[in-house]
């Protein structure tokens, strides 16, 4: 498979006299194969938008290498721009123009036939409202217009930064269908989103970023498998015994991943029967012992170390920091 998008060791440093130096991207790597829907995940402020902006030539990187469709960026950007459709973080449009005018001007600047405008308006469901001023649009309608503007070029690579932002449930589902259709027609889609259930449903592969570095990547099922961790959910007959049980299990070398009010989540459990035995020895009786299939959300929270901790207010930038060498080992991180 050929890579449509390659990023190696990308760095972007923001300097300000007051707040010092911020490494928004700190040796970030990414690779997207042709024809895939690729999820680009990371906590707030981890560098997703910075990556996409850099890729699109809006930001000058401090180092690293980027290529789209085999062409080195930013040198070849003018040549590949016609094949890359993008929206970057809820784009704004000139408020007094109608959607049709807005797209018409873009199509004209890009030397595309005018009929493309009506095609994409139809595709994103704005056909009947296309003559109204963008100023009067709802959030989701603006988002649809943004997606329309990215689709206008009929690109080979489609880059969408939080396209589902503000979409209604029907809209999200339509977006999902649209992504799949586009991928089937041979388009490569890079999708950044915080709706991980959605990503899990539509993406073939993902890249997870934290504090400007890649913490995991690969096909979705492989990332999940690598982090399934043999999780087990345990419930006891008496909820009040849970703290005692957690203590006992921890002493026996079993990792308690989370202590919820009515159950415990255990990680790295090879033999669930062992759990049952240890607890029974202490006179604690298990009412439920279920292996849990991990979802992308929990893997994400674990990899980025951003799961909420009771009693703490996690601040942005409080997330997993990987060593430079840590990303070398494939999807396992």
């Amino acid at each position, binding site marked *: 498979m050929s890579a449509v998008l390659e990023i190696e060791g990308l760095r972007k440093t923001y300097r300000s006299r007051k707040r010092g130096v911020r490494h928004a991207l700190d040796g970030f790597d990414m690779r997207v194969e042709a024809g895939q829907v690729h999820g680009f995940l990371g906590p707030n402020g981890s560098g997703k938008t910075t990556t996409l902006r850099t890729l699109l030539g809006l930001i000058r990187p401090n180092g690293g290498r980027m290529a789209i469709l085999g062409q080195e960026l930013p040198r070849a950007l003018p040549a590949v721009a016609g094949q890359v459709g993008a929206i970057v973080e809820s784009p*704004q*449009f*000139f*408020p007094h123009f109608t959607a049709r005018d807005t797209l018409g001007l873009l199509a004209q600047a890009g030397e595309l036939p005018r009929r493309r405008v009506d095609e994409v308006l139809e595709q994103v469901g704005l056909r009947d409202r296309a003559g109204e001023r963008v100023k009067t649009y709802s959030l989701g309608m603006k988002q649809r217009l943004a997606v329309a503007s990215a689709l206008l070029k009929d690109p080979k690579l489609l880059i969408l930064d939080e396209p589902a932002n503000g979409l209604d449930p029907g809209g999200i589902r339509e977006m999902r269908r649209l992504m799949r259709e586009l991928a089937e027609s041979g388009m490569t889609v890079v999708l950044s989103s915080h709706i991980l259930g959605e990503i899990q449903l539509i993406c073939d592969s993902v890249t997870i970023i934290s504090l400007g570095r890649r913490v995991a990547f690969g096909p979705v099922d492989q990332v999940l498998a690598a982090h399934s961790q043999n999780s087990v959910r345990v419930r006891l007959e008496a909820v009040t015994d849970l703290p005692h049980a957690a203590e006992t299990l921890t002493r026996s070398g079993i990792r308690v991943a989370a202590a919820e009010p009515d159950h415990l989540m255990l990680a790295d459990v090879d033999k669930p029967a062992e759990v049952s035995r240890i607890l029974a020895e202490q006179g604690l009786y298990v009412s439920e012992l279920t292996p849990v299939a991990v979802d992308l959300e929990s893997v994400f929270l674990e990899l980025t170390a951003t799961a909420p901790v009771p009693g703490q207010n996690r601040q942005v930038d409080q997330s997993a920091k990987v060593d430079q060498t840590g990303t070398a080992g494939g999807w396992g991180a």
Partner: protein
Amino acid sequence: MSLFVTELRRLTKRRLTRLMLVLLVLGLATVATAFSFSSHKLSPEVVAAAQAESDAQYKRSVQEWQRTVTECEAAQAKGEQTEERYGQNCGKDYQPQPEMFDPKWNLPYQFDFRAEFPMFIAVFAGAVALFAFIVGASFVGAEWNTGGMMNLLLWRPKRLAVLGTKLAALLTTVLGLSVVLGALWTAAFWLIGTSRGTTAKMTAGAWRSIGLDGLRAVALILVVGAVAYALASLGRHTAMALGAAVALFAISEIGIRIAVGVLGVSFGERYVLSTYAQSWFMKQAELFDYDTCQFAKGACEPAKYVVTWEQSAVVFGIGAVAALVAAFWAMRRRDIA
């Protein structure tokens, strides 16, 4: 090319452009109309009427004069003191003379195209330059502000080409407007001249001079538009250009004026921008330094300093080039977020 056409279309589609254009046309039309009422053609009848009126005035004042003299003499005959009331010698030395009643004073104002149209070119240039400033600044400022610039760069990643093409579209539009409105403006005043004033002595040379005035006016309009565009693009906001203009005005017209006044710099006005605007239109601005005069020694020719329109061209040219270079340099270097 397609981008240029797109930007022309974008500019003319904008509400602000249309609104400002309507205001500009209305404003110019109002000035021309109002002015046309103040001018009256000096037909032979009007001239004759003025002559008759001066004659009558002359007659009336001679009669009045004679009456006072008679009154005064009568009083003197009664032995009264008249000096205070009637002046020396009963004011006999002050007989009104006919040349004191020039019929010119009784003529209504008549517009003289040849002498006065150049001033109206400056009025026109001021109005259109204001239009160019606002439209130019907001054309790129609003685009930055609303993220339109970023959108456009996703389609056309050559930043300098995009900024340059937009500027070209702006200047083309402003130039076209200046030419069309300028022709209408000239026609309007020519009409006022022929119907209610005079268009005498409009030789080929006079027309050429007016043509050159027009060219200088258009050049100034384009420079103002380009500078507004550059400033708004530098600040990535329309208000930036307006702010810079206000600041420049305050510094130049108030700050420098006060500073040179306090420091006693001779010909301090040569550091003030409006002097250069004046000389640009009037071909030269003359500054006088009355401090060199010693009036005790009688009438005096004050020292003179002349600012030529060529100097103005250099000043405005340097300013415009500096603003544009800065704008393009920033476009090349700065991140777009």
